[in-house]
């Protein structure tokens, strides 16, 4: 951000809201087709029944649950970056926080969709909501599924409110620059923000509180998701390390997704001055830490399986490494635990192409991890008579592809219609204009 002043920041960030090139519409249109195809497949599944998927005993949690856990994981880095790093005063978070928060909101939305898709009879989803009803049925508050419902809905609400709170001063800046209907829309969402001392005073207090409240939430959400599995007695699920293991995995995948989205965004919008290589390098360094935690967790899982002397645990973990889905297992190990280690080399973490390649590898690895844990453990539990494989069918595959299209679609809309970098926070990192003490003036002198 060297050499930038307040005016430059407004100009650089708000110029991305101007009319996009034709290629933008083309990509958005293509992604919309992907979403449409996913929606058609879901409709087909609703009318025909869940039998159109590969759902078959014993694999009762299929690709939909893999997607659910994957997207919740992706959603983690946004709040990590915006809340935890805000409390730690890590300056490198500033240029990437807004996009990461947007990514969080979209990822939670998509994650929340998958339990509904998996439900089959989606129109009776409200049965899980606790309220006095004529059925005289109440959900069980001891169930991890209710924990999950509460955790995900809380996380979604908090993420949206945190994101929106950060956006308000920037929407006001966009309003002041826009004309016509755009001015009215930005003005409506800016709530009449004028940047008065009173507004900043209460806003500052609330933002700090939101960061403080969101921080334990980040840790709790994926812990709760992990208990969906850990509270079951299936070998491969029933483990006390699941909560920290899942949280580290979620942050790992989220950071990788931040790199995957921000490197192209930086290139397309020419944000080189604002999102510096140093910021991306900091994300890569954090990925090394989470990668090491993940690698350690993989080792501990195997150690526990061996040390416990439990034959069911042992066979489950042998099956993971050498069984039907061994390929996915080794993809998981390489991409999540080995590939990030290349970031130890400065040359690797300061080259955009290597940053992007490893980030994509981590995304693939984390998807493979969700698959190995969820599908692999169910396929072989205690009794060989009960064993069985799950085969992915075109319906769930199409819906999965549709979800990726929806994620990118929403992110592209965000990048075009909202300030993708926080204007107010970037300005806080810049020395303001000072007349005295030899500080720079309007002409940058």
């Amino acid at each position: 951000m060297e050499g930038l002043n307040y005016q430059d920041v407004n100009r650089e960030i708000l110029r991305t809201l101007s009319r996009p090139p034709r290629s933008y519409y083309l990509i958005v249109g293509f992604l919309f087709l992907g979403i449409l195809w996913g929606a058609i497949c879901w409709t087909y599944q609703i009318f025909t029944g869940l039998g159109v998927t590969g759902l078959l005993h014993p694999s009762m949690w299929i690709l939909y649950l893999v997607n659910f856990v994957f997207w919740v994981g992706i959603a983690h880095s946004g709040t990590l970056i915006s809340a935890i790093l805000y409390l730690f005063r890590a300056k490198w978070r500033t240029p990437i926080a807004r996009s990461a928060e947007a990514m969080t909101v979209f990822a939670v939305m998509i994650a929340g969709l998958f339990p509904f898709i998996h439900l089959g009879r989606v129109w009776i989803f409200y049965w899980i909501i606790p309220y006095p009803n004529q059925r005289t049925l109440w959900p069980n508050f001891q169930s991890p599924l209710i924990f999950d419902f509460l955790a995900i809905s809380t996380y979604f609400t908090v993420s949206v409110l945190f994101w929106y709170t950060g956006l308000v001063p920037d929407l006001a800046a966009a309003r002041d620059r826009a004309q016509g209907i755009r001015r009215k829309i930005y003005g409506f969402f800016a709530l009449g923000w004028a940047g008065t001392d009173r507004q900043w005073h209460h806003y500052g207090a609330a933002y700090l509180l939101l960061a403080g409240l969101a921080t334990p939430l980040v840790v709790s959400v994926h812990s709760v998701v992990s208990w969906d599995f850990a509270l079951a007695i299936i070998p491969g699920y029933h483990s006390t390390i699941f909560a920290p293991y899942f949280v580290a995995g979620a942050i790992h995948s989220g950071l990788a997704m931040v790199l995957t989205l921000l490197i192209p965004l930086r290139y397309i919008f020419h944000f080189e001055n604002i999102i510096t290589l140093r910021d991306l390098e900091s994300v890569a360094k954090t990925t090394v830490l989470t990668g090491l935690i993940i690698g350690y967790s993989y080792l501990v899982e195997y150690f526990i399986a061996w040390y416990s002397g439990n034959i069911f645990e042992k066979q489950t973990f042998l099956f993971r490494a050498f069984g039907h889905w061994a390929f996915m297992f080794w993809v998981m190990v390489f991409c999540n635990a080995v590939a990030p280690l290349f970031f130890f080399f400065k040359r690797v973490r300061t080259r955009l192409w290597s940053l992007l390649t490893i980030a994509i590898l981590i995304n693939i690895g984390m998807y493979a991890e969700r698959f190995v844990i969820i599908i692999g453990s169910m396929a072989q539990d205690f009794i060989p008579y009960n064993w069985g494989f799950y085969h992915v069918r075109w319906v769930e595959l199409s819906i999965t592809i549709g979800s990726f299209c929806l994620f990118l679609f929403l992110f592209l809309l965000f990048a075009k219609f909202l300030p993708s970098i926080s204007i107010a926070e970037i300005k806080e990192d810049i020395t303001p204009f000072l007349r005295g003490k030899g500080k720079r003036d309007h002409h940058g002198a």
Partner: protein
Amino acid sequence: MAHEPALLGIFSYLDDLLEALRRVKKENWKILTVFSPIHFSEIQEIVGHKTSTVRYLTLIGGILGGTSVVGLGVYAHLSFKLITSGKPVIPPIPFIVPFFEGTILLAVIFAVLSWVLKGRLPRVKLPAAYDPRFSEDRFGILVAYPEGKRETISKLLKDAGAEEVRDVSG
């Protein structure tokens, strides 16, 4: 915003603005509002804001959220008794998770509502003194002036480095 006659001083430099604020404060003129593109704690200190009540409202939200979700859970378990072996109908340990989520949820909702309402938002019309440059790189002070003191305050603002001083009515 201002229902009394007031002068708006627009500043380019932060140190000029802070100096003007100090002088206005020292001479006991009434500061109606200060506009700035970002949050500066020095401005809050000079203007003399008390601790924001947002934190108390957030605490109330958290307590309300946690207790109401647990209350709902207890009511649900008493209404539909799911008795499994010797386990209690109302188990305290699993209720920690709904309690935690409820606490955070309502605390955050209260925090957001309170900063919006305490900041006197939402509002349809922007304050009469607002200048679009305040969201970019300029600062502003709105000072109320008693009858006959317009010139004194105008001079004070200009001397402090205001690049523009203008009248703002109600």
